């Protein structure tokens, strides 16, 4: 009867170890791990890109670091997992990562199927890049061209919609990795490279001769890029959302990593609240009261992060445009700390 006993034990152990995973309380998991695990791109300069020592930098990386600073008071407690466009949502829903700051466009179907979007850290739009020697000045002249793009992105769908609406013939060559798309375009497999305008600016720096290419004026879509979190964990959603808001509100209030310690003594009640000098806003989220202080001190406000990663002085050279604060003519607008 020994065998029956073994079978019974095995069954018991097997069923005990496979109870359905719980998806709530990401904050507890993050605290237990001692770090926030973020899914990022496989290398998109300005957004999430590793240097030769494996240190990640970029706008999306800063979003992740801001959350780490909010939770731990230490922006370095962040791990990065490079994910392809195709595998990113699975990694999020399966719990492999805690959040997904991976230049992901917010859409209804993604919001409904894959997770929630706590905010937008870059307002983008899809554009086209072509070789100068094609002599093309508008995307409307691209009938019959071959277009290189990424599989599993909104880009692939937008370009199909765009050419269909204009009644133009086109062929699409869709690769899985962003690097392969750029390499194929650079080798002349396609006439057109299309992705979000920020992405084009970033990838252009990787081309053999960046000056031989021109970005066409048409912007064919709205691409609000932002981090994603799993469904069913409101507290974690709020934490990510207010980490983003903190950076934008700090810029609006004139708080930067350079002047934050002076600002701490400010009489302005708004500044006192956001830095945790008065009130208990941080505790309402389950965070230390001075979480926003840690973010701005260690990561910087939104403007600093923008300038450092994608701004005019970087190789990408993007202007603030839509991403300027609402009071400066952009649409970056964060709810108040109150």
């Amino acid at each position: 009867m020994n065998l029956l006993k073994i079978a019974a034990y095995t069954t018991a152990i097997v069923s005990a170890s496979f109870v359905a995973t719980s998806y709530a309380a990401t904050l507890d998991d993050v605290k237990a791990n001692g770090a926030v695990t973020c899914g990022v791109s496989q290398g998109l300069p300005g957004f999430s890109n590793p240097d030769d020592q494996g240190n990640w930098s970029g706008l999306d990386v800063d979003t992740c670091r801001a959350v780490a600073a909010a939770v731990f008071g230490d922006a370095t407690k962040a791990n990065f997992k490079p994910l392809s466009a195709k595998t990113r949502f699975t990694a999020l829903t399966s719990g492999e990562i805690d959040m997904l700051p991976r230049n992901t466009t917010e859409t209804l179907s993604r919001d409904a199927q894959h997770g929630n979007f706590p905010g937008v850290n870059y307002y983008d739009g899809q554009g086209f890049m072509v070789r100068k020697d094609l002599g093309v000045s508008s995307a409307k002249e691209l009938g019959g061209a071959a277009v290189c793009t990424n599989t599993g992105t909104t880009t692939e769908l937008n370009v199909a919609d765009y050419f269909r609406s204009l009644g133009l013939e086109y062929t699409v060559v869709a690769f899985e990795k962003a690097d392969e798309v750029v390499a194929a375009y650079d080798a002349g497999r396609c006439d057109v490279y299309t992705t979000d305008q920020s992405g084009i600016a970033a990838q252009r720096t990787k081309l053999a001769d960046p000056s031989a290419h021109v970005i066409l004026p048409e912007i064919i879509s709205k691409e609000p890029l932002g981090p994603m979190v799993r469904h069913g964990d409101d507290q974690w959603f709020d934490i990510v959302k207010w980490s983003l808001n903190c950076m934008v509100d700090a810029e609006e209030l004139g708080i930067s990593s350079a002047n934050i310690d002076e600002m701490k003594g400010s009489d302005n009640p708004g500044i006192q609240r956001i830095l945790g000098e008065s009130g208990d806003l941080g505790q309402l989220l389950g965070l230390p009261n001075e979480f926003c202080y840690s973010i701005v001190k260690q990561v910087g406000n939104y403007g600093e992060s923008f300038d450092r990663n994608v701004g005019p002085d970087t190789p990408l050279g993007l202007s603030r445009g839509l991403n300027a604060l609402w009071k400066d003519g952009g649409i970056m607008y964060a709810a108040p700390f109150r």
Partner: protein
Amino acid sequence: MAEVQSNVPPKKGGFSLSDTKTRGLIYQALTIAMVVYGIWWIIDNAANNMAAQNIKFGFGFLTTQSGFGIIQSLIDYNESSSYGRVFFVGLLNTLIVALIGCILTTIIGFIVGVGRLSKNWLINKISTIYVETLRNIPLLLQIFFWYNAVLKPLPGPRDVHDKGDQLWFSLSNNGLMIPKPIPEGGFWIVFTIFVLGIIGAIVIKKWAFNRQMATGQQFKTIWTTLGLIIVLPLLAFVVMGSPLHFQPGEMGTFRPNAGFGLNVIPEFIALLLALVAYTSAFVAEIVRAGIQSVSHGQTEASYALGLRPGPTLKLIIIPQAMRVIVPPLTSQYLNLTKNSSLAVAIAYPDLVAVFTGTVLNQTGKAVEIIMMTMLVYLSISLVTSTFMNWYNDRVKLVER
């Protein structure tokens, strides 16, 4: 007690744990129970987790509009087609590369395999180098080699042609452009005659074989075969007024215009070349092993009976070699078909790339899509195996 029991056979219907038969039954029942439990657990776990994530199981998504373009489709497809249609586009793209791949692999594999046994030093060495190089480099690397190092650096179509050029044969980084055959009204009659010619040739061959068996008289079928398969359809073709014309490609502003000529995309060429080069190296070794498995005594015996080298190869060596060659050859066909899913690395739109890749990403129906894809590969493999097993039954040694 043990000695007593071993002498007394257990009573009918009696139940004893010391009976090997009963114990065997219990073990088997337990194994089945555990397997069934395991499967049930996997399904239950998936169902629970899907419910927890609010994902509904179902195939309704197959009728939804896809909204993306595919670079190569053998059936009508555009962005307003459904995901179900994407499935068939991907499936056919997989099948075409697998089918052409298997045919070319067999031809090249047999040539190289025989070449390895050649007494000609040069042919022998070239064949050996072919096999040893190609089967020892990983397939994915070979695909990248053909695509990135050979096809992508080719000049662009705009560098070679001007707008409006007629393209009869053009190789560029846009792929291979060849004329598209367009059949006209009478072509089907010519085609029917061609098919009838083949059937006629087979019938004559059977008749000649039976007559030789019965009377010993030989009949040279080569001339009747040539006449029926080539001369007769050619004659019909001329009589019907050449009902087939070839339409060349036409250069547009950026690329050859769609709808003119036949454009074989570079992704297809790269994948096909890599698959054929890699797999044919294995097939060559299988063929060599098969031929060497037939002992030299057979050849000598055949010569002693007065058969010349040609008939010896055809009647003695190959039939005996085939029974060794066919079973491992089947495995290579299956490998080639399954390896075609590496297409995803170079943007060839096979089933895995467009359906398990793009559609999965857009719908999030992971369980359904992976299930369908696995079923497809399983079915293709089982059909190939069944066919090859049938063929193996025909060529294997008949034991009397």
